[in-house]
């Protein structure tokens, strides 16, 4: 064995990310729960709204409220294995940079959210969406999903890092995450609205810029705070 040297952020991130994805591949609980939630929510909206098709602001609202609530499931599961099996202690005992845990957890959540975003968009367009977006609108919607999911992943990992240190973890996740996600949800819903309207529309860049700013602010906040949150 060659001498041990503290791993770089990249190396530790890859180790945690590989572990996270392996755990989900072996026991696919989080993705399954999120996907089932989305499908169920769309079916419920379908009957509750008494409509076969929705469009515009209503369509954007239904899509993003469903995705945001599904994201809460993912956020809530983010540190479950680490808490129940002592994995967080295992990480904290190592000389690995704490930032690696933030990056790996946020990346894992982002991957899950992107998969669910794709899945939910397809189900939504089949079950509820009135207008069929053209290729350019789908591309814009995909861009919105990536930006919004990045923000949700950053905020979610930050909140999960706070929640893991408390006894009321499940409550904390919902209570803190939803209010913090309000600006993001307003921006992404407003930006999605013209893309889901009959006759179509184009992406409003100011909402896109707001999403980018949100991601930047919470990325910096998470980077600055995460070490203090996970350590004693």
């Amino acid at each position, binding site marked *: *064995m*060659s*001498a*041990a*040297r*503290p*791993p770089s952020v990249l*190396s*530790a991130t*890859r*180790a*945690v990310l*590989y*572990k996270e994805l*392996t*755990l989900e591949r*072996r*026991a696919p609980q989080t993705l399954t729960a999120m996907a089932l939630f989305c499908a169920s929510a769309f079916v419920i909206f379908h009957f509750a709204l008494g409509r076969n098709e929705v469009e515009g602001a209503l369509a954007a609202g239904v899509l993003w409220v469903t995705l945001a609530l599904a994201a809460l499931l993912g956020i809530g599961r983010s540190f479950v*294995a680490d808490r129940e*099996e*002592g*994995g967080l*202690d*295992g*990480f*904290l*005992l*190592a*000389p*690995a940079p704490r930032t690696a845990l933030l990056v790996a957890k946020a990346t894992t959540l982002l991957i899950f959210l992107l998969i669910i975003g794709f899945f939910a968009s397809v189900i939504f367009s089949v079950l509820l969406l009135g207008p069929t977006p053209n290729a350019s609108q789908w591309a814009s919607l995909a861009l919105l999903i990536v930006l919004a999911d990045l923000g949700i992943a950053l905020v979610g990992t930050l909140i999960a890092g706070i929640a893991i240190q408390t006894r009321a973890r499940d409550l904390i996740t919902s209570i803190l995450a939803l209010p913090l996600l309000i600006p993001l949800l307003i921006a992404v819903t407003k930006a999605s609205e013209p893309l889901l309207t009959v006759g179509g529309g184009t992406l409003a860049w100011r909402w896109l810029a707001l999403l980018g700013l949100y991601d930047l602010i919470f990325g910096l906040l998470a980077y600055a705070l995460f070490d203090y949150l996970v*350590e*004693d």
Partner: protein
Amino acid sequence: MASTEPAVVCSGLVRRYGERRALDGIDLTLEQGQTLVVFGPNGAGKTTLLRVLSTLLRPSEGNASLLGSDLRKEGWKVRSQIGFLGHQSLCYGDLTARENLRYHARLHGIGGAAARIEAVLEQTQLSDRGDERVFGYSRGMLQRLAICRAVLHEPQVLLLDEPRSNLDPAAIEQVEPLIGAAVGRTRVIASHDPAGGLAEANLVLGLRNGAATLLAPAEQVSTEQIAELYR
């Protein structure tokens, strides 16, 4: 890090959980290569002491240093030198033993870890089942795997919380070359076994309600004094 530096120094060490003092003014010095065995009834503060020394908990008051580094300010410096064995294995049930050890090796930046992983698995007789997911392991197997994890990076200081619990006599012999006195590492061991603990101790610490009621070289301590802690 000077080699003559004491391995562990605690001075007025206090750790609070809310209002309760889980550690209440602990003072001790442990030289390198020596073994401190900590006795005390449940809730006396043994695990808290180990967690503070491992850097998982910060001291609320007072000082604790390990290999010359102040744990409050420089815990990051010594993490690679600490091998911690707690009540949990710190291994993921849905990963195999080899995957768990590979994961910890990467977090410790161990180069060429494969040979070391095979060596510790072989030593603890887990090689044949090293590719099975850990959730199917017995408690004894989990404890052996946890020991493999704790010593994987060959730390200078071992912090061991009841290291031989759940192990049968054969398994205790298997892990001896990894965590026993012959390894020559500094060890802090929490134990409920007066005779066994005393036999491997250089220094004995008795805790009750977080306070040190006994601190003496092992040769000056009798099993009766230790038993007294539990009454």
